[in-house]
């Protein structure tokens, strides 16, 4: 039959894999689709797990990408609780943890990433948690509440979002960050300092330049965190949020080119023509920035799901998108568009003291990234400037009495 009937196997049922399966049907693929998920539940949204969901503001139903019956109704063979063990590219087969061998014509690797675990003594104690999956989030949620002492290792977005939620639920919170500032991998110094002081003002103790050397426990359960300078932090629960590592082992073992993740092209195709890789597992080109990267975000997973589904069904490729992300902490909505590559100047617009401002990172007159705090117009307009690679009038941009509509006009 036509090119729309190959057997497609999708390994990994997170946001990327689940979206790819749905889009393949939407784009008219009529052949079989098998969606393999390691977790026991159907694809769901991870971002709320450290935000609204953790505070009890949304339920499990609202997390699901699609209702349970969607997969059967769409003839998608969804297999929960199974992982991939090995890949035979010559035979075009994938061996699963169940022992089954699946034949594919096209394979999509959407194996995601896993939280980095600390190699320190005591990291395996009960109560030392990570937050990636719905099951992780259930465990974290069960530990939060009034008077709970929460130690958070890592001052990135996950750590700060959980810190805000834990505090709002009545706990006391210490954030322990190894670097000299928060958000060292993922935010500018201005944003990092703003969030530090915002958290501190609400009662979060933020420790910078503090290295964790171990966890002490009693009866197998964590009781305190030990730092390199000898200080100890008493806690009822410790959350480790120090970054993620792409699950690219199955691809690497099969000889696919990997860097930090499986290397793909603009169609999300790997070095094997029959295999695609999308989402957190992939290392992809970013045409707007002329380099390879792994943006670790939902919008990235969605864009690559579109790329792969388009390439497989012979549809024209989706327009390149501006990488973006968001974070909710307390009453702050941070929206970030673009990436801070090749930046030679930084400009702040708005009023930090009123928690309504944006930090623009520029290369000459071109906006490379905007970090907007409670500043949706700056985010939206900045995103458009980045996409169109339009030069911006820096004097107007710096003047918050000039509206963003006028800046963008």
């Amino acid at each position, binding site marked *: 039959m036509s090119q729309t009937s190959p057997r497609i196997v999708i390994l990994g049922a997170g946001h990327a894999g689940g979206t790819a399966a749905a889009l393949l049907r939407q784009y008219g693929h009529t052949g079989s689709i098998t969606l393999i998920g390691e977790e026991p539940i159907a694809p769901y949204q991870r971002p*709320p797990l450290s935000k609204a969901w953790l505070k009890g503001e949304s339920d499990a139903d609202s997390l699901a990408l699609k209702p349970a019956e969607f997969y059967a109704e769409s003839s998608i063979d969804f297999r929960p609780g199974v992982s991939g063990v090995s890949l035979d590219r010559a035979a075009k087969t994938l061996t699963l943890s169940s022992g089954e061998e699946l034949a594919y014509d096209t394979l999509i690797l959407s194996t995601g990433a896993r939280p980095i675990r600390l190699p320190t003594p005591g990291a395996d104690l009960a109560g030392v948690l990570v937050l990636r999956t719905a099951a992780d989030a259930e465990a974290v949620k069960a530990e939060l509440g009034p008077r709970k002492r929460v130690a958070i290792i890592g001052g990135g977005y996950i750590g700060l979002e959980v810190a805000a939620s834990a505090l709002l639920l009545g706990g006391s919170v210490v954030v322990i960050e190894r670097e000299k500032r928060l958000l060292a991998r993922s935010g500018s110094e201005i944003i990092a300092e703003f969030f530090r002081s915002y958290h501190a003002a609400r009662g979060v103790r933020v420790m910078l330049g503090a290295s964790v050397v171990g966890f002490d426990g009693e009866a197998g359960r964590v009781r305190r965190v030990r730092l390199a300078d000898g200080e100890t932090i008493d806690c009822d629960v410790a959350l480790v949020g120090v970054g993620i590592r792409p699950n690219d082992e199955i691809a690497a073992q099969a000889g696919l080119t990997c860097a930090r993740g499986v290397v793909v092209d603009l169609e999300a195709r790997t070095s094997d023509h029959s295999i695609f890789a999308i989402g957190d597992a992939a290392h992809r080109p970013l045409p707007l920035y002329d380099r390879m990267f792994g943006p670790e975000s*939902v919008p990235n997973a969605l864009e690559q799901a579109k790329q792969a589904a388009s390439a497989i069904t012979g549809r024209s490729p989706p327009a390149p998108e501006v990488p973006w992300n968001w974070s909710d902490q307390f009453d702050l909505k941070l929206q970030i568009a673009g990436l801070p590559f090749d930046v030679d100047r930084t400009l702040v617009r708005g009023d930090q003291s009123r928690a309504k401002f944006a930090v623009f990172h520029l290369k000459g007159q071109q906006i490379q990234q905007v970090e907007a705090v409670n500043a949706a*117009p700056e985010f939206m307009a900045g995103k*458009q400037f980045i996409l169109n690679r339009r030069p911006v009038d820096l004097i107007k941009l710096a003047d918050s009495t000039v509206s963003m509509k006028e800046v963008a006009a």
Partner: protein
Amino acid sequence: MAKIIYIEHNGSEHVVDVKSGLSVMQGAVQNNVPGINADCGGACSCATCHVYVDESWRDRTGSLSDMETAMLDFAENVEPNSRLSCQIKVSDDLDGLIVRLPATQS
């Protein structure tokens, strides 16, 4: 429960029963209605769930928050009846609601 009618830019109609309490965006996403992408999952952060609310329903779909207004200010093809569907909560009162989808989300 309310019956919501989503009309794609190409004219295709999707009539879907949506539970009260969900958003108009969630009703579309859960039923695989094309054209409502909802990249941010309903956090009012992406403007990819933009819809045009049928004139006869505008009064009943509530008013816009500052955040929604600001996001729509910079969305494409905005009309006076533009809304972000993640910000419209479904109730029995919205039974029969008609929303149309913009060309940019096809």
